[in-house]
């Protein structure tokens, strides 16, 4: 796939949750392209255009990052911290998705600049509904950040 035009970066190591999320998004035709990173390191490489993503550009950020907290290699909080402390990436909306009921994670997440925080429902139907609402809100209702003060289409038209 072309990883330069990604609507959603899904950072999730559970194959079941990946399948459920992709299925719900495609069913609603909410995201044309979703890139799945299976651990925190791959997510950071993708967002910071490093390693196997060196060909990507900071000018093509995803419209949304769905970030699980418990991840191999680099955990979700650390990924969030790095995204939100770098001027090149801090504007990218990041929604934390977790099965944790820890009040501490919730507070830490918002303190570090998470755009939102969602508890994953255990129930299959509720999970699907959650992904649909989430996709609708962040990809249709929300105005995503623009790079260089102009949307990409406008830059290309010049």
């Amino acid at each position: 796939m072309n990883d330069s035009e990604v609507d959603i970066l899904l950072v999730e190591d559970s194959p079941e949750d990946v399948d459920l999320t992709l299925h719900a998004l495609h069913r609603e035709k909410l995201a044309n392209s979703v890139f799945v990173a299976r651990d925190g390191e791959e997510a950071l490489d993708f967002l910071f255009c490093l390693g196997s993503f060196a060909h990507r550009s900071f000018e093509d950020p995803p419209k949304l990052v769905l970030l699980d907290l418990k991840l191999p290699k680099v955990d979700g909080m650390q990924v969030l911290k790095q995204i939100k402390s770098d001027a090149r990436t801090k504007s990218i909306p990041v929604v934390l998705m977790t099965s944790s009921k820890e009040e501490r994670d919730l507070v830490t997440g918002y303190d570090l600049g998470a755009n939102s925080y969602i508890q994953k429902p255990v129930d299959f139907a509720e999970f699907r509904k959650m992904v649909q609402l989430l996709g609708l809100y962040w990809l249709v209702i929300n105005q995503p950040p623009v790079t260089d003060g102009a949307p990409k289409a406008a830059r290309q038209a010049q």
Partner: protein
Amino acid sequence: MKPVPELLIVDDNPADLGLAREALSGGSHHTQINSVEDGEEALAFLNRTGVHASAIRPDLVILDLNLPKKNGLAVLAAVKTDSDLRRIPVVIFSASRLSQDIARSYELGANCYVSKPGNLNEYFAAVRSIEEFWFGLASLSLRGG
């Protein structure tokens, strides 16, 4: 039982404010709606000073950008640089579709940016969407911490 979420709407336009209240009262989530009409009052409410000394800390702020006394971006900057207030999600709800307003809002730490539609039905739908996402789906830091 979970406490009823407290919402603060900052908007100087009484008609917009009225519509937002109407949309929310018909919605499916019970929220306590507080409103203020300029940027200085918003910060007084959030910091619980002056006439707002007994204000309850909101769980969500819906913030217009074009405001008297102190504009929305200045309010946003003050909230997001305050170590205590910064964890309160701020939804920018503005008629502006200028890319520099959107970009600046995210740089300052806005949690999301929703354009105010000019059409009545779409305005209602936008407010309901904000309500559905933030009070129906998201976990909010309910006056904890």
